[in-house]
């Protein structure tokens, strides 16, 4: 007779991650609301370096992705893993290291990003010490999960856990490859990858951060919590198998769709497009499997706010996974890219799919771990409607605004000139949409406040059962089945291995030829490395987060070449560490801005954008005229770049400071001659910034 074993579930760690998710989620969303307001009330940048849009935007994205959603994943995964495997987590110590380590990383991000320590790679902005910390904590989580799976009391591993495994394997691979960098200071580094290759690797990472952090993990949560809340089995377990393998194999290829019409080689763009369109099939397979799990209990959906949250979450997943492939078709991407359409798209995913699933999950978990009823179902209902209406009010203006702006960018008059030659006209046109968006965001956050109140009251009514007693038959031997997919479902090592193989193929086929085959990036003889002063200016540009609003990639469209100049070529970026293509044009593209305006224009524009561009929403950067240029950092920067392959002469690092001061003096003298009066102007950061801006896109004109 099988022995029944007694053990306990660790609910304490679930509660901790849930609280962290909610608290950091509130912070991340409030920062998002501030950013939304800054776009039509630029005074809300407060004239401080730490509160400008450029520095806060990565804080918002990181807080929502890694703090809100990340902690949500861990809360849900720790809750479901234990119950699906019928065992406690392998190690309380590893769970605690994972929890506190992750929160320290978030605090580190919250401090360093406003201070301007950023790699500028989207969703991978954190600098090298934090990257290392993420790797360590992620491995701790991985070991804890793997060992828990190994000591399970269930013979076969349930589909939700396959998705957790895929999340862990993929994120490990993506994080390591995309963050290969060489430090030159305590919190600064230059990346191993450069230019177009860096762009491909970044978007292989960036897209799959969405795919494997925000999607596969949540699909795992969906496969556990939707059946639980509905008390219905998964609609089709067969479909879940096809969904899983097709999704993880295809997803990893789709990254290049973020670089359509850029100077990325056409063959990679085509692969990105084809696989993105193919993604509809597995994505919708998963969505339908989730929704059809509710067959027969739709009456319960009417009464149960948890199921309502899940239905909206899965529907939002379906919407964004239809929209994403459509946006990956080149003709659609020509309209959507660089506009608020993309912002609307990601927020359907983040607010709808991740947010609503997280909320539903917490409403499910809290009463169960506190052994009480939810304090107020009515309040949860209010939260649901505020959240849902908030998402709609957020997304629709963004779609409207995105299409409006791109069409304005592309509109020509009968005489062949641009109707909206002044970029600002296309920005101020969007203000009504920006206002509506922030109202949508406010509603969503109000709903979150309802959740916080409701869960605090729920917790107060009950008592946390930190170690919940459980029992299950002992698994004396895992019953391996030597047939079909059941074979791999009981073999943990093989499951990890096959998942890795499925994940690695796409990256290898796309990235290796890009690095190995030189003809992918035709070199241009006149393109040279940045001068030391330009390099310093470039690092200030990165610090201020200018890439958040300004692209550096002129696409080969007449509307863009007329507005900005010659389209961008891949050979122009070979010394760009990091690459700064950007993905949004809140302001105009800057790749051909070099020599377009006099130095004095840039000086005045940086200090007060509205003095040169009336109505501009760009924040002023007065500290650039006060801060001294950090010439001392030059030697280590140049040496690091030489190590990475930038062809500076061997003895260049030692004399880079002198070269930089000489160039700064020339620029400062010209500014003074032009009537700008400031003491020691040549020592100020504004001069380095001007040097960099004036260099942009000029090499091919030599």
């Amino acid at each position: 007779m099988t022995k029944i074993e007694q053990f306990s579930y660790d609910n304490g760690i679930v509660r901790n991650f849930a609280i962290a998710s909610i608290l950091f989620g509130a912070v991340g969303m409030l920062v998002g609301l501030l950013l939304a307001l800054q776009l039509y009330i630029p005074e809300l940048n407060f004239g401080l370096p730490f509160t400008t849009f450029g520095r806060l935007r990565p804080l918002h994205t990181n807080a929502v992705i890694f703090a809100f959603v990340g902690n949500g994943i861990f809360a849900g995964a720790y809750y479901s893993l234990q119950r699906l495997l019928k065992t406690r987590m392998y190690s309380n110590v590893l769970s605690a290291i994972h929890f506190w380590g992750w929160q320290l990383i978030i605090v580190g991000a919250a401090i360093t990003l406003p201070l301007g320590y950023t790699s500028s790679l989207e969703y991978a902005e954190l600098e090298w010490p934090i990257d290392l910390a993420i790797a360590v904590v992620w491995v701790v989580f991985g070991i804890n999960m793997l060992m828990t799976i190994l000591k399970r009391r269930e013979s076969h591993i349930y589909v939700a856990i396959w998705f957790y495994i895929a999340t862990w394997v993929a994120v490990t691979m993506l994080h390591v490859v995309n963050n290969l960098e060489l430090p030159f200071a305590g919190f600064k580094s230059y990346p191993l990858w450069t230019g177009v290759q860096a762009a491909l690797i970044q978007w292989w990472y960036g897209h799959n951060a969405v795919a494997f952090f925000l999607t596969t993990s949540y699909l795992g949560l969906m496969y556990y919590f939707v059946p639980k809340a509905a008390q219905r089995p998964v609609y089709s377990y067969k479909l879940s198998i096809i969904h899983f393998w097709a999704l993880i194999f295809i997803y990893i290829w789709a990254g290049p769709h973020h670089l359509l019409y850029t100077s990325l080689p056409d063959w990679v763009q085509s692969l990105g497009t084809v696989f993105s369109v193919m993604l509809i099939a597995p994505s919708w397979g998963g969505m339908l499997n989730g929704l059809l799990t509710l067959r027969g209990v739709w009456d319960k959906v009417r009464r149960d706010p948890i199921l309502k949250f899940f239905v909206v979450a899965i529907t939002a997943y379906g919407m964004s996974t239809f929209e994403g492939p459509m946006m990956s078709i080149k003709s659609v991407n020509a309209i959507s890219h660089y506009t608020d359409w993309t912002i609307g798209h990601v927020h359907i995913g983040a607010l709808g799919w991740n947010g609503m699933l997280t909320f539903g999950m917490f409403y499910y978990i809290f009463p169960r771990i506190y052994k009480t009823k939810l304090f107020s179902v009515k309040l949860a209902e209010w939260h649901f409607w505020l959240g849902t209406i908030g998402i709609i009010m957020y997304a629709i203006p963004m779609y409207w605004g995105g299409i409006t702006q791109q069409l304005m960018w592309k509109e020509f008059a009968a005489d062949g000139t641009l109707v909206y030659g002044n970029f600002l006209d296309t920005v101020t046109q969007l203000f009504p949409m920006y206002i509506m968006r922030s109202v949508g965001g406010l509603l969503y956050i109000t709903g979150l406040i309802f959740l916080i109140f409701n869960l605090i009251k729920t917790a107060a009514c009950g008592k946390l059962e930190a170690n919940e007693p459980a029992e299950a038959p002992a698994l004396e031997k895992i019953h391996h089945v030597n047939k079909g997919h059941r074979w791999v479902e009981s073999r943990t090592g093989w499951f990890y291995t096959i998942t890795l193989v499925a994940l690695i193929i796409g990256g290898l086929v796309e990235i290796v030829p890009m690095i190995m085959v030189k003809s992918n990036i035709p070199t241009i003889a006149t393109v040279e490395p940045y001068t030391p002063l330009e390099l310093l200016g470039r690092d200030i540009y990165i610090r201020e987060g200018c890439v958040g609003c300004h692209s550096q990639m002129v696409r080969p469209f007449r509307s863009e070449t007329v507005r900005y100049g010659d389209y961008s070529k891949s050979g122009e970026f070979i010394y760009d560490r990091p690459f700064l293509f950007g993905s949004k044009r809140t302001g105009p593209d800057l790749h051909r801005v070099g020599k377009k305006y006099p130095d004095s224009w840039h000086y005045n524009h940086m200090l007060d954008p509205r003095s040169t561009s009336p109505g501009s929403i760009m924040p002023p950067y007065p500290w650039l005229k006060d801060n001294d240029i950090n010439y001392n950092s030059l030697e280590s920067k140049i040496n690091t770049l030489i190590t990475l392959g930038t062809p500076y002469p061997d003895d260049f690092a030692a004399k880079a400071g002198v070269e930089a001061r000489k160039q700064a003096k020339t620029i400062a003298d010209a500014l003074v001659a032009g009537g700008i009066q400031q003491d020691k102007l040549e020592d100020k950061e504004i001069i380095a910034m001007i040097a960099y801006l004036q260099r942009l896109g000029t090499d091919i004109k030599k």
Partner: protein
Amino acid sequence: MNDRIKYILNSGDGINWLGITIFVVFFILFLAVVWITLRRNKDADDYMAEMPINEKEESFE
């Protein structure tokens, strides 16, 4: 017939063979997974599909 094949191959210039190869590889793998999946035992499927709801849990509704 040979001329027809020769014509098709000659006019194949510019085709993205890498993309097509990957596409074919994917569909072979995909069909293999579908085939393996469809041959699954229904009882095993039902057991797995019900795994989350088989667990005893207190209700707090």
